[in-house]
């Protein structure tokens, strides 16, 4: 189903992220068996697949949190496999984890300002407050006293300031009310307009299909299929079957 003309885009020059034959382990268990994927600048790419397929593990490998991995990860043109997380961050990638990772011993404002600005091109504080006005009102609250939706927005907001141009979003709509999900969709569209590149993991295919440009389907640590948003209409049933929906 993959249309090579549409999916691979131009050559490596515009690839923000390029992964080749990524093999990854959690302790002793082999989780990633040879992932290949490309994310071009300005694209929004979504990783789909069942639970335990290796989607989150792939994101963790990109930011350097996987204890053992082999293969090639290239971020903004720089080989980064085996690098320490601190160094990888400076290449311009930021991670918004599934569990959100809001620090309980920090206030909302401290949470927001924690990630340092590493490059230019990030959102200013004013822009962030404009995008997420309810965060501006809860600045002195303890980070974990915020609602689920507010914590998700905080988790996203704090990485927008850093200047990272590749954002990794893991299950950013999980367990959230439709109103908040809509807000997040709006935010991601805005980010695309601003030139950010997004690689996201999403169980909610309905949400993903309205936001992402391209999709990779991952199963048991391998990419088993990929398709473009335009392909969805014709192949909906097949896709839903593949995802187990």
């Amino acid at each position, binding site marked *: 189903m993959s249309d090579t003309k549409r999916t691979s885009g131009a050559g490596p020059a515009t690839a923000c992220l390029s992964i080749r034959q990524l093999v990854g382990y959690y302790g002793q268990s082999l989780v990633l068996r040879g992932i290949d994927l490309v994310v071009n600048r300005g694209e929004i790419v979504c990783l789909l697949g069942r639970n335990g397929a290796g989607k989150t593990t792939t994101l963790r490998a990109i930011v*350097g*949190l996987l204890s053992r991995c082999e293969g090639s990860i290239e971020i903004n043109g720089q080989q980064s496999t085996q690098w320490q997380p*601190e160094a990888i*961050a400076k290449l311009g990638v930021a991670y918004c984890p599934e569990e959100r*990772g809001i620090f309980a011993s*920090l206030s909302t404002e*401290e949470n927001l300002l*924690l990630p340092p600005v*590493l490059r230019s091109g990030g959102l200013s504080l004013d822009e962030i407050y404009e995008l997420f006005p309810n965060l501006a009102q809860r600045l002195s609250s303890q980070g974990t006293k915020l609602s689920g939706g507010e914590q998700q927005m905080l988790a996203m907001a704090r990485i927008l300031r850093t200047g990272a141009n590749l954002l990794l979003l893991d299950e950013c709509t999980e367990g959230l009310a439709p109103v908040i999900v809509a807000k997040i969709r709006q935010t991601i569209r805005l980010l695309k307009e601003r030139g950010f590149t997004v690689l996201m993991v999403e169980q909610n295919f309905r949400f993903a299909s309205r936001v992402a440009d391209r999709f990779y389907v991952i199963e048991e640590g391998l990419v088993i299929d990929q398709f473009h948003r335009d392909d969805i209409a014709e192949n909906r049933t097949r896709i839903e079957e593949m995802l187990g929906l």
Partner: protein
Amino acid sequence: MSSLLEISISSFLGQLMIGLINGSFYALMSLGLSIIFGLLHVVNFAHGALFMLGAFVAWGLLEYAGIGYWPALLIAPLIVAGIGLLIERLLLRRLYGLDQVYSLLLTFGLAMLIEGVFRLKFGASGQPYPSPIKAGLELEMAFIPGYRIWVIVASLAICLTIWFVIERTKLGSYLRAANENAPLVRTFGINVPRILMLTYGLGVGLAGLSGVMAAPIYQVNPLMGNSMIVVVFAVVVIGGMGSLIGSIIAGFGLGVLEGLTKLFLPEAAGIVIFIAMIVVLAFRPFGLFGQDPR
């Protein structure tokens, strides 16, 4: 009135002072231990030996370089902190993924090593160190040495400053965040391994500082860390491992408790802190302010 309990006001004040002095050192030492445990999850048995090291560095500075107390107050903790940086970087760092037992045993071994070296050179006898403040407070019932007032006030100030820096400043927010989720903090580009190293240095620097401040009060001898370490651990456990405010309160509180017990029940003074620990742990498994690490 003063003979109501057959205890004179002057001896009460005297013991209170001793209690506060000891409490000052307990607080500073347990603060350092808590900071190290909170972030590195290391039970630093070398703390007592590094306290003793701080005192000896101060003594050495005076003896061999003519450098007095006030400069030593700055230099000695820095030297001890520097040694701490080396210990973390070269030894402790390699044990982080393993069971806590190993880092505990490593620091225990380092304590023996450091104490052994000093015992070799100085035996078990003490070296005197002159008090930098000769004046004092002349009260009706007692004379309170100025130096002791300095120790108490300075310790309290240092403890509260460190508490403030960690709990209320941006620098402290790095530490607090790393405490909770170090891997995530690293993905933000923050050099957590370096923070760990500096934190260990800070923790043992506090021990070194206590050593300098203790030098004019106790004799500077290789065993001074030994008797201190066991009590300090009790204090940290009572306050709650990893809790800064717990260490400060428990430190001063138990120092005073110990001092006053000597007045009423002199025999029990040696173990009142251990009895307190058993009582506290019977009701609060993680100390007064500690939290379940899970």
